[in-house]
């Protein structure tokens, strides 16, 4: 359940009233998920982040993220954990 997946921020929306922090649209292996950026105030458009249960939990270095992402694919196949 602690699995988090790396993805690239492809859009950022400002926080609406009552929302905690901005929201990003993150491209995770080609599918787009919405993730709160409340915990990653340094994340910008184009950055790579780790997404867990609807929240970006850290910003990643792009090169390293790509590597993680490629081998995670190999290791995990297409089964979600």
């Amino acid at each position, binding site marked *: 359940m602690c699995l988090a997946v790396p993805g690239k921020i492809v859009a950022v929306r400002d926080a609406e009233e*009552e929302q905690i922090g901005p929201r990003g649209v993150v491209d995770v292996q080609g599918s787009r998920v919405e993730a709160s950026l409340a915990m990653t105030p340094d994340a910008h458009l184009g950055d790579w982040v780790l997404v867990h249960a609807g929240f970006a939990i*850290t910003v990643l270095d792009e090169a390293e993220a790509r590597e993680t992402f490629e081998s995670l694919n190999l290791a995990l196949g297409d089964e979600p*954990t």
Partner: protein
Amino acid sequence: MNRDAIQQLVETITTLTAGRGRVQIMEICGTHTVSLFRSGVKSLLPANLRLISGPGCPVCVTSQGYLDAACELADRPDVTICTYGDMVRVPGSSGSLAERRSAGAKVTVVYSPRDALKLARQTPSRKVVFLSVGFETTTPGSAATILEAAAAGVENFFILPGHKLVIPAMRTLLAAGDVPIDGFLCPGHVSVVIGANAWRPIAQEYHKPCVVAGFEPQNMLEGIAHLCRQITENQAYVENVYSTAVHDEGNIVAREMVERVFTPADETWRAMGVIPQSGLMLREEYRRFDARDALGVSFGPDVSPPGCRCGDVIQGRLDPNQCALFGKSCTPLQPVGPCMVSSEGACAAWYKYAK
């Protein structure tokens, strides 16, 4: 994935552990348990190196009393339960949430606590209860969601708190001392939040090497190799081979959010009893979101299903296939205990990959 590098790491590990008798490394994280099996890493390791699964699958460590309270809430006609998927099939004292759902109860699987809050706002006539279980990786999201619910004045959203903290559980295992543990493969994504430094007390006070690793095969092997080196050199400190994602201090924003909303509390773990200060409860100003207070439920006793040894499995005392029910009356299709239900449960992983 670099096959040469993998080969080399396996050789290093084999050389380091050769002639040492049994070396036992505990991986505390359920995601590690599954990744180690699925990637085949487990099968590459020398026979005297035993990886044992710890109490790190959130569903497996959730007490029966918690589950029964969730079921009691699901039975109420005005309540909608929102939960991570794995909780749905865990058998409680009187059936599972899945059975209740088939009988008409509203039980919705969500991917994020934000989805539960959204549902609450869309259905103001219903009381929406999010089953907020999980470790340090998951808790900040619950905290952020509570803050948002408070800011928006949502009155029909609640959580049933079942959060767990990893380090107090490790202390309990080490204090019991009946399972020899030579080192810990520390969970990468818990560490993203709490930081690599958080493991220092375990390394220093108990003289146990702690290595933070991610989830891809090469990285897990690197973590294991570093552990074996420390073990052979009789060292015990914290190393971080997952610096792509994990910093020494963790995610400070996330930690502050958790601190704003929650305060440490005693917590019951399945078959491990109450571990002091190993859980989190809502602070006074957010207590109205606690389903126990707001909806009048409480956690009953933690009674394991007859014959189920999940408690021993999650404490490393038993490999799943040593449970008399494993693969007989307990299978992923007809699970007896949570360790066979959860995709990250040690019993489910053994059944799928090692049977």
